[in-house]
């Protein structure tokens, strides 16, 4: 198809360009015009990071063909700050602390601008409604609502412009002050470049061929047809690894690309680089991989049984790690108790869903230093591992951490940086890889799903005499952070309570599922979910208030932990007291007394959400007052 001609006004400037007919408006803005403030988060209209105004209407530019831009007037986030001065709304985002990783923020600023253009007097509930199409994974939205309300009030003259300014700290006591985030202006204006926004001269684009099987032997890989394609500059497989292949946060059990067999659906098998990302993707179809499917296991309990398919030679029992904690004598502890409560808890696999999909740019510099720029959460460890994998001394490997558009533990694994390094070494050209949302979800680590069996013994007056906790977690196909997650889960499992007899066992197990890895709260979320729910059940049975049962058992200053460490200072009872007070808690046992309690619905709660949009008619004020 011939190129399409696009004449449009973008951020007040006339442009006239030819564009490839398959481009989305998002690609045209980012790749052809360099307006990288507009981000791609999902490519499917779900997340709102790519929001722009087309003829004044807020649209998701990933859903708009570029050709539709013909004859339109477009505003992107870069157009909001006139002559470099941030708009009132952008300043309010800065002041309120409404940006964290910043990746959703350009789209959020556009949606919030649209909200206040539609109704300059919008209330908080209407603001929430109008931002409903934009996902933020960091902030919890509260500071974003605060920012939009602040901008509304400053624009309407209800708060002074000085409400947007930095608070003065003339005494130099900046520790403890609400200093505005230094990186916020670059985020609210779209100026900050994430790895997927960066380009280099002569840069290639990389695409990755992934396993369609959960467990299969690789009989052969034939890349010859792909390599012969015009426009293909390089093809790599595990055969291109010059050193000792293998990476992982604790155990180096994962090859840069599948070696001998694949262990999960989506595992990387080969990669292609081309100046044209379309050619790279088309070349993937020309790579012929012959697989011989192997028996697979998809359940952690099944994987622990003898005779289950083994994923890794070094671990015939599929065990990644077992962590035991032992204190006292649990048999005695249960014998001493008046009440024994048993329950089983389970948690599911969860995706980090940072708005910035994985991306990286690699090149070999003038001194032969293999350089990888990516939103890696652990460049120190990555350089150690890559140095061994590419058989280069440490100072010939350089990792640069680009701004991270959300991590939450999900960017600790070196899942793609190795491929980028190999391709840059092979082609001697800069290479960029940007994951699609689907690649990000299917192929990268998740939060460990878990199954915990719990047994707690207590005296009549609420003292815990013994706990026995066994947690089994599906680590998926590779070790990643499983060992550490099992360790933290175990250490913290029994909660911040002084318990004389403790037996905890956590097991991380290999299966052919999507790997599990590091995720904010790292195993402790799973094990403490069990403990804190269990305590509620015990409190009900004993007729104790939930704060009270925790106070009875709370570790205090000088306590010894379940790993036999002495803690000088323990703030738990202070936290319990403060929470009880802040929430105006009405004391009582947790006997399902919601219908009779009197502390509901007060300060600190939001109105309940009901069916129907909470939008005020747009003409709620005379037009002359509209900003």
């Amino acid at each position: 198809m011939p190129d399409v001609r696009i004449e449009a006004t973008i951020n007040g400037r006339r442009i006239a360009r030819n564009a490839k007919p398959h481009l989305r408006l998002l690609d045209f803005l980012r790749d052809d015009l360099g307006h990288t403030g507009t981000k791609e988060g999902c490519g499917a209209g779900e997340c709102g990071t790519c929001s722009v105004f087309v003829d004044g209407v807020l649209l998701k530019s990933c859903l708009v063909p570029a050709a539709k831009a013909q004859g339109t007037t477009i505003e992107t986030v870069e157009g909001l700050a006139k002559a470099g001065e941030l708009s009132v709304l952008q300043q309010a985002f800065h002041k309120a602390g409404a940006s964290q990783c910043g990746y959703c923020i350009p789209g959020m600023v556009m949606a919030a601008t649209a909200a206040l253009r539609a109704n300059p007097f919008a209330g908080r509930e209407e603001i929430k409604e109008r931002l409903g199409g934009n996902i933020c994974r960091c902030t919890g939205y509260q500071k974003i609502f605060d920012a939009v309300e602040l901008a509304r009030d400053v624009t309407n003259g209800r708060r002074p412009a000085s409400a947007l300014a930095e608070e003065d700290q003339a005494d130099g006591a900046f520790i403890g002050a609400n200093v505005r985030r230094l990186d916020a202006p670059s985020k609210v204006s779209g100026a900050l470049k994430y790895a997927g926004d960066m380009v280099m001269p002569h840069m290639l684009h990389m695409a990755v061929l992934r396993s369609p099987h959960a467990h299969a032997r690789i009989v052969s890989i034939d890349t010859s047809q792909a390599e012969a394609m015009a426009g293909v500059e390089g093809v790599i497989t595990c055969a291109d690894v010059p050193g000792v292949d293998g990476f992982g946060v604790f155990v180096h059990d994962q090859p840069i690309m599948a070696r001998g067999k694949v262990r999960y659906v989506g595992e990387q098998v080969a990669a292609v680089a081309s100046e044209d990302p379309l050619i790279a993707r088309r070349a993937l179809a020309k790579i012929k991989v012959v697989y011989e499917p192997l028996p697979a296991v998809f359940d952690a309990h099944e994987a622990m049984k003898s005779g289950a398919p083994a994923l890794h030679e070094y671990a015939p029992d599929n065990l990644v790690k077992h962590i035991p904690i032992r204190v006292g004598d649990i048999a005695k502890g249960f014998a001493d108790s008046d009440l024994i409560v048993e329950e089983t808890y389970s948690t599911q696999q969860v995706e980090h869903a940072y708005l910035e999909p994985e991306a990286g740019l690699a090149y070999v510099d003038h001194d032969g230093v293999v350089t990888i720029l990516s939103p890696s959460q652990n460049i120190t460890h990555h350089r150690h591992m890559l140095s061994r994998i590419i058989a280069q001394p440490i100072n010939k490997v350089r990792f640069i951490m680009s701004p991270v558009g959300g991590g939450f533990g999900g960017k600790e694994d070196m899942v793609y940086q190795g491929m980028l390094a190999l391709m840059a070494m092979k082609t001697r050209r800069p290479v960029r890889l940007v994951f699609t949302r689907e690649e990000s979800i299917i192929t990268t680590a998740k939060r460990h799903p878990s199954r915990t069996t719990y047994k707690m013994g207590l005296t009549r007056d609420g003292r815990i005499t013994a706990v026995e906790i066994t947690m089994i977690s599906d680590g998926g196909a590779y070790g990643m952070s499983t060992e550490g997650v099992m360790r933290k889960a175990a250490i913290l499992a029994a909660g911040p309570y002084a318990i004389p007899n403790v037996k905890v066992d956590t097991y991380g197990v290999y299966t052919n599922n999507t790997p599990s890895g590091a995720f904010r709260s790292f195993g402790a979320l799973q094990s403490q979910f069990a403990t804190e729910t269990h305590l509620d059940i015990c409190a009900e049975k004993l007729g104790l208030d939930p704060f009270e049962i925790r106070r009875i058992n709370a570790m205090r200053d000088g306590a010894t932990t379940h790993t036999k460490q002495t803690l000088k200072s323990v703030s738990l009872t202070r936290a319990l007291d403060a929470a009880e007070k802040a929430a105006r808690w009405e004391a009582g046992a947790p006997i399902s007394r919601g219908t009779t309690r009197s502390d509901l619905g007060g300060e600190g709660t939001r109105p309940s959400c009901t069916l129907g949009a909470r939008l005020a008619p747009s003409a709620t004020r005379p037009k002359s007052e509209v900003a």
Partner: protein
Amino acid sequence: MAKRRGRGVAACWYGIARTATVDRAGAWAEIDDGGTAKIVTGVTEIGEGILTVLAQIAAQELGVRPQDVTIGDNDTARSPEAAHAGATRQTYMIGNAVALASRQARAALVEVLAKHWGVDGRSIKTAAGEAWAEGTNHKMPMGDAVHLAKSRGVVPLGSASFGTDTTGLDPVDGSGRPWQAYVFGCQVAEVEVDTLTGEVQVLGIWAVHDVGRAVNPRGVEGQIEGGIVQALGQGLMEDYRTVNGHATTPNLAKYILPTSLDVPHVTSVILEDPDPIGPLGVKGIGEPAMIPTIPAVMNAIYDAVGVRITSLPATPEKVLEGIIAKASRAKASRMAAE
């Protein structure tokens, strides 16, 4: 009544920095021309606000303003090791390293000023871009002080590392010192459950967390609010599913995340129990903020409708199933009694 409300409580504890291993971080500091400052350390923002936190720490320790501080890129070939951005370790490990390096750079500048003014170095104060000797008329902008130092052949520099006194765990009984700093917290949740649909709305969370010392209280609140909403996602809706290893939730249309209409009002209460070991007293907040939310919400659901959710997430289907099962149990026991 179709909608029922209830409340629940949960507490938490957490260890700061890397677990059951020695953690460490390094930083370089320079008081630069014009009274600005350069901090170089292996760290970049992952959204938590660490660049601002480090600038605040450096500014206070050096006597400049946060906006005068430039933080160098995280680059294994250009900056000292500060290891990874995770484990709720950035403010604790790198913040303390930056404080120590800044103190060293400041000491180099103070030594020049003390000689120049003929005063005891201990009487010299630096704050918000000014240096002065207490009890005297000696005072100059930090830019002039740097210029003076350089004219005496001194570049005011510092470097420091901060490490932890921690151990691995015994392989048999797990004993050991996995962390040197611990934090504690507690949250209360208020929910509304629709007994016709099983849908749960979380209307309010009161969150109390010990952070040691809050460098930027608004940033701490941001971590608490964000952590709570991530936890609500896992508690109520998020569910990555596979069938024979193939994802059935491979995109954001199928993998459901909390939006602006799903979030509760969050009231944060910041507790400060200073870390006795590090020079700043700071600890951390990133991960512990998430931990009490899910059990507090599940306990609140029980309070509201008498249904115990022990397997996550608490989808409307699961809650409704529990409500129906409870009703039929109650009916059966009524019939047995009759």
